[in-house]
């Protein structure tokens, strides 16, 4: 394989490395960078280069190098391309983002709601676009993928919605957390009416999400063989806690699921559905949300956890503001730095030290435009 790199490639690599370093910049290293930048403008260093500065990490605890990292994309809500191209472009952009990561992540996790109305053509389009990812794909189902044909097409394309796998000493669990009790038979709904009811975030005719007894049993069995200090990351489409019921920012049997996870030293849960920067910790369980590629949701009028540093209100005049994708840096202790790569904004990292210190250290930047 040719190892020659063009000037442009080298420049872009350096630039990328530089900006990755900037994400965790503290004040002292900022001064170092500024001095170097000053040097650069004064002609002391090679003018094209970003490399003279290796950005030092902040607090002591944060210096641990991640054992590995994976990328995430979530909530693309695809219609067919000729119905709505904006959401399609959103997913394409995210796939480009992830493909441009260098080095490549170990895998890419897709967080659910690939389709808007669970239609075969929407899901197929999504599957087609996700095939362009260079890194291997792991995928979770969302309610928008499920309630037209009760998951038939999605499972045909992607396999069972509940599974687990091990990667570099971390046990990953993927749940189908958007089960709803039957509300459609009594109302004599067609499959599409059922789908559209679930697709309406504020539609009160649907029931709260849940993991359900069968999957909880599966989860308990799946985790039974693991020691208490095992490193575990759980994926669920809905947050595995109770935030705001009217929008199903909610899992009805969250306490039961948390009880299964309770014996472990620490567990990380990563969820979709909320389309926003969302952080919570309940005892040993650290919860992180994922950004959407389709649109950002407003923060719920109540129930937003204390640890959450909200993202500033999105600019309605910029259709991709508040959307994005991101990365998860998994540290040797099993805790994660959660990177929200917001399009059009500086990325925001919620570090494991922020979570471990209950929000005392490494506080992410506060919003200047809070929710109304």
């Amino acid at each position, binding site marked *: 394989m040719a190892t020659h790199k063009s000037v442009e490639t080298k420049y872009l690599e350096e630039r990328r490395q530089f900006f990755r370093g900037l994400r965790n910049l503290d004040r002292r290293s900022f001064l170092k960078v500024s001095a170097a930048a000053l040097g650069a403008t004064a002609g002391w260093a090679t003018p094209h280069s970003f490399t003279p500065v290796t950005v030092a990490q902040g607090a002591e605890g944060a210096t641990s190098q991640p054992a590995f990292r994976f990328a995430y994309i979530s909530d693309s809500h695809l219609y067919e391309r000729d119905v709505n191209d904006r959401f399609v472009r959103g997913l394409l952009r995210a796939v480009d983002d992830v493909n441009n990561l260098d080095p490549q992540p170990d895998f890419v996790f897709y967080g659910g709601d690939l389709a808007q109305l669970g239609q075969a053509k929407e899901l197929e389009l999504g599957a087609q676009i996700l095939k362009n990812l260079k890194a291997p794909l792991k995928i979770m189902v969302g309610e928008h993928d499920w309630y037209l044909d009760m998951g038939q097409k999605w499972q045909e394309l992607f396999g069972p919605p509940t599974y687990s796998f091990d990667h570099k000493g971390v046990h990953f669990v993927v749940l189908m957390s958007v089960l709803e009790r039957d509300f459609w038979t009594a109302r004599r709904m067609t499959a599409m009416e059922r789908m559209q009811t679930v697709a*309406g*975030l504020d539609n009160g005719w649907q029931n709260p999400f849940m993991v359900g007894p069968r999957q909880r049993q599966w989860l308990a069995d799946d985790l039974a063989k693991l020691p208490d200090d095992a490193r575990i990351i759980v994926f669920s489409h809905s947050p595995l806690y109770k935030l705001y019921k009217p929008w199903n920012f909610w899992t009805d049997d969250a306490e039961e699921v948390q009880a299964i996870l309770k014996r472990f030293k620490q567990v990380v849960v990563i969820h979709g559905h909320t389309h926003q920067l969302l952080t919570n910790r309940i005892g040993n369980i650290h919860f992180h949300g994922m950004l959407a590629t389709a649109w950002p949701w407003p923060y719920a009028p109540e129930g937003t956890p204390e640890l959450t540093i909200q993202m500033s209100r999105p600019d*309605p005049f910029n259709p991709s503001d508040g959307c994005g994708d991101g990365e998860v840096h998994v540290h040797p202790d099993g805790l994660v730095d959660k990177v929200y790569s917001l399009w059009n904004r500086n990325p925001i990292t919620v570090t494991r030290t922020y979570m471990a210190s209950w929000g005392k250290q490494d506080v992410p930047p506060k919003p200047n435009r809070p929710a109304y």
Partner: protein
Amino acid sequence: MRTMRIPRRIGGVVVGTIGVLLALLVLGGVPKAGPPAGLAPAAAESPPVVAVAAAAPAPARSPSKNDQPTVQIGACDGGAPVEVSKDLKGKALADSLMDQWKRSHPEANWVTEEKEKHALKPPADNSGLLKGAQGKSHTYGNYTERDILLWARETEKFVAEGSRIFHSADLLGSEVAVSCDMCHPHAANTHPETYPKYQVQLGRVALLRDMINWCIENPVRGEKLAADSPTMRALEAYILSQRKGVPMEYGKH
């Protein structure tokens, strides 16, 4: 209000209900069941039989797919005749008829359903106006319970119509299947209380309706609404109603 489709729908409910009840009378399926109090007693006295008979001259037998004998029943609202199994009697027959009628009139209870589905906030409680002796001697202010109820129902209906449009890409005329609730569940983050304000991106002072139109033209990709169009009025009504209790704070960013 009158220009909206609401009055006709409400009319349809009454006519439709009468139709089914009359059909029941003809069949004798509900013994002793007169029309419930309040349902046009005059109509129930004599002509209904004639009216129904006119719509469906004689209950005609027609073989169904299952070869079960059925009976066709005409509806006096001019709607398509209803077919039921001949063996159905009493409550089962009434249920079957009501069921079919409901299926062919899915919007019969649309205001109640919209209120329930999207958790519409109720208008202010005005029952306090019924107290106080001074009103009795005064034409303006001499309200009855009926007045209070009428105001509430009409206002709710207006708001419900707005909610329906807000939640429907079709009613908004979207070319990209996008509706308002996709970014604004329960009208969240619409902050009508902050208008008028200087809208930085537009470079001028905007009213709520300017922002509604901006959204309709851009993310929704529909056609701009006239400021006094029934759709715009209904959308404003819904958005404002959902911010009940939030202090007005014009100019807030």
